[in-house]
């Protein structure tokens, strides 16, 4: 096994990876930008290397600095976590070129799966269902109209270079098609300098369901069942669960096989995720493959008992995957909530500040993956995710109840968080029934402003008054009173003077 691993990341995922290393007796190296000098991942590591300037391109995204850091401390391998350089094929290649093991799939797999059109072609060849669509080079309007009619309606026109809804059109009927294609092309040209578009079937009641994959360097590939990640705001997952409330054993078997086929077609090794879109009729379509550890990996760990990060390390160290598909089962139900420093009542605006208090809920089957501690400052440089709360229980209902309880015990003071928002999502009757799609939040929580009325409860006033009275010295009171007849301190008539 490696004797020293550098973790090219920060926050909760760096902490989680370091703890896995510690269990395996692997020394850990943290990298940190100036604002992270006193971050938990630095405190936890055996060694740490400064990256300087907090700008991501100058720190956690800077390939050269990170490779040099690893060389400086003689780390044999680098774990990229998720985000930052995790899906950057140049980084994987730079590691290899420097004789450092990149903990993840090969650079070529990352590159291939990173090109979404190429990835879909590979999947089609492997008979993995993809969303019917046209991704061809012929971009004249008549070809596009012809292809669109073949796909059927409703369909979506999307800019090839697109993002953020620009150059996108939903087409419900035949006769809207030509005009929509022309409009999308114009918008795409002006937004991205490129008028290339593609067409795709529109999915009704879409659910985001993904399958966890583990593959070794010896030809073994297994899946570790599904995760339902439909609760998203602006394509950002915030609550994930497994099993999916819509899953049937048959569909799980089909999708699991498709996921393994997809991974095999890609020549995949290490941990990865095959993301599918599932419609209201249980039709599923390959969306993309994430060639890295996923934020929501703990719910798979909670229900399968498999430690994905330890397996990443073992696989990168050329060990054989000894976990057999047929031995794997799902136990109970797990939920994850992502705790963000953001204000859900004000457009999910990120919140910055110094954390004055942090207390995690503690109890059986409550897991806290956290990158925060008291006195740590949340800056605007990086993703505002502070921590993840994972719970598991015998079934979905108990899991939801446990999560609601755990959120009610979760203390983060100093920034605004989404904790109350998460609790209210979990309490929503449609969520509790499992009737969720990727449109859930925009349907039920579009203009959420705090839910319960914003009045300060009497209990809070009582506690505040007691706190303030406790923390004001008697001498101070007397001095205030003497010096300033207008001070808020007064003798109280009811009591007698003296001792």
């Amino acid at each position, binding site marked *: 096994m490696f004797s020293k691993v550098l973790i090219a990341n920060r926050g909760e995922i760096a902490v989680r990876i370091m703890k896995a290393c510690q269990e395996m007796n692997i020394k850990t190296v943290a990298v940190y930008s100036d604002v992270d000098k006193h971050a938990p991942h630095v405190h936890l590591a055996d060694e740490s290397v400064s990256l300087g300037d907090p700008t991501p391109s100058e720190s956690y995204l800077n390939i050269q600095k990170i490779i040099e850091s690893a060389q400086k401390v003689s780390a044999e391998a680098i774990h990229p976590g998720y985000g930052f350089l995790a899906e950057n094929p140049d980084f994987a290649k730079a590691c290899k070129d420097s004789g450092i093991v990149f903990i993840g799939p090969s650079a070529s797999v990352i590159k291939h799966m990173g090109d979404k059109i190429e990835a879909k072609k590979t999947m089609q060849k492997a008979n993995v269902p993809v969303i019917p669509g046209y991704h061809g080079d012929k971009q004249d309007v008549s070809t596009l109209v012809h292809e669109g009619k073949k796909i059927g309606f409703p369909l979506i026109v999307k800019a090839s270079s697109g993002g953020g809804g620009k150059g996108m059109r939903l087409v419900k009927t035949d006769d809207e098609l030509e005009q929509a294609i022309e409009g999308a092309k114009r918008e795409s040209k002006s937004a991205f300098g490129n008028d290339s578009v593609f067409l795709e079937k529109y999915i009704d009641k879409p659910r985001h369901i993904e399958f966890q994959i583990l593959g070794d360097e010896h030809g073994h590939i297994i899946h570790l069942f599904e995760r339902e990640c439909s609760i998203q705001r602006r394509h950002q997952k915030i609550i994930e669960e497994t099993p999916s409330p819509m899953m049937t054993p048959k569909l799980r078997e089909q999708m699991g096989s498709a996921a393994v086929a997809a991974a095999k077609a890609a020549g995949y090794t290490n941990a990865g995720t095959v993301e599918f879109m599932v419609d209201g009729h249980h039709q599923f379509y390959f969306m993309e493959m994430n060639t890295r550890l996923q934020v929501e990996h703990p719910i798979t760990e909670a229900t399968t008992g498999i430690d994905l990060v330890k397996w990443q390390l073992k696989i990168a160290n050329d060990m054989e995957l000894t976990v057999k598909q047929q031995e794997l089962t799902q136990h109970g139900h797990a939920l994850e909530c992502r705790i963000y420093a953001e204000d859900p009542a004000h457009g999910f605006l990120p919140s910055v500040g110094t954390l004055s208090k942090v207390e995690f809920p503690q109890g059986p089957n409550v897991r806290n993956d956290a990158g925060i501690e008291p006195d740590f400052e949340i800056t605007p440089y990086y993703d505002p995710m502070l921590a993840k709360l994972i719970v598991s229980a015998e079934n979905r209902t108990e899991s939801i109840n446990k999560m609601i309880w755990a959120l009610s015990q979760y203390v983060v003071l100093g920034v605004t968080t989404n904790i109350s928002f998460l609790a209210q999502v979990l309490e929503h009757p449609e969520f509790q029934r499992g009737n969720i799609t990727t449109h859930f939040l925009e349907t039920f929580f579009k203009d959420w402003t705090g839910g319960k009325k914003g009045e300060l*409860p*009497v209990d809070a006033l*009582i*506690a505040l008054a*007691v706190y303030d009275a406790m923390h004001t010295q008697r001498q101070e009171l007397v001095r205030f009173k003497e010096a300033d007849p207008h001070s808020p*301190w*007064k003798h109280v008539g009811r009591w007698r003077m003296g001792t």
Partner: protein
Amino acid sequence: MEDGNIGMFINYEHANHVYNVTVERRENEFFITYDNIEYTVTAQEIKPGQLNVNLGDRMIKCMISEGEDRKYVFINGQVFQVKRVELTGRRKTEKKETDLNSPISGTVVSVKTKEGESIQKDDVIMVIEAMKMEYLIRAPYNGLVKKINFKEKDQIEIGKLAAEIERTKED
């Protein structure tokens, strides 16, 4: 010197509402008055900022931390950001001017001056009683009483201007 029991008026602001509270401490007991109800509690700070407040049989559990200009209160899974305000805009500095706004809602017990009278800084203009405590409105500077807005037995609300004083020019 008197060093008996001392009470405190506090104005807490949350979400544009101001909550006017008094608290008195007597050894281990606290008497809190809000909205004309008095709560008698005992309390314990388990660790810094973590309070268990016993209100009869019930236990209020809460966590309080201090930010730069506000307090954060965690209670029943919710977080509230609360500021302590001086309604009159006064700051607690060494030398400060008193002012003419009532810091509490209460009853005018007596009015010590008349419109048209000359008044010296710190002279009492009005006595207001609220929740068994008396509060004095004093002249913030030397001047002429232009208007007195309340008379004896009137109800005066928090933040309301008790009187207007035309300041004497000093040079």
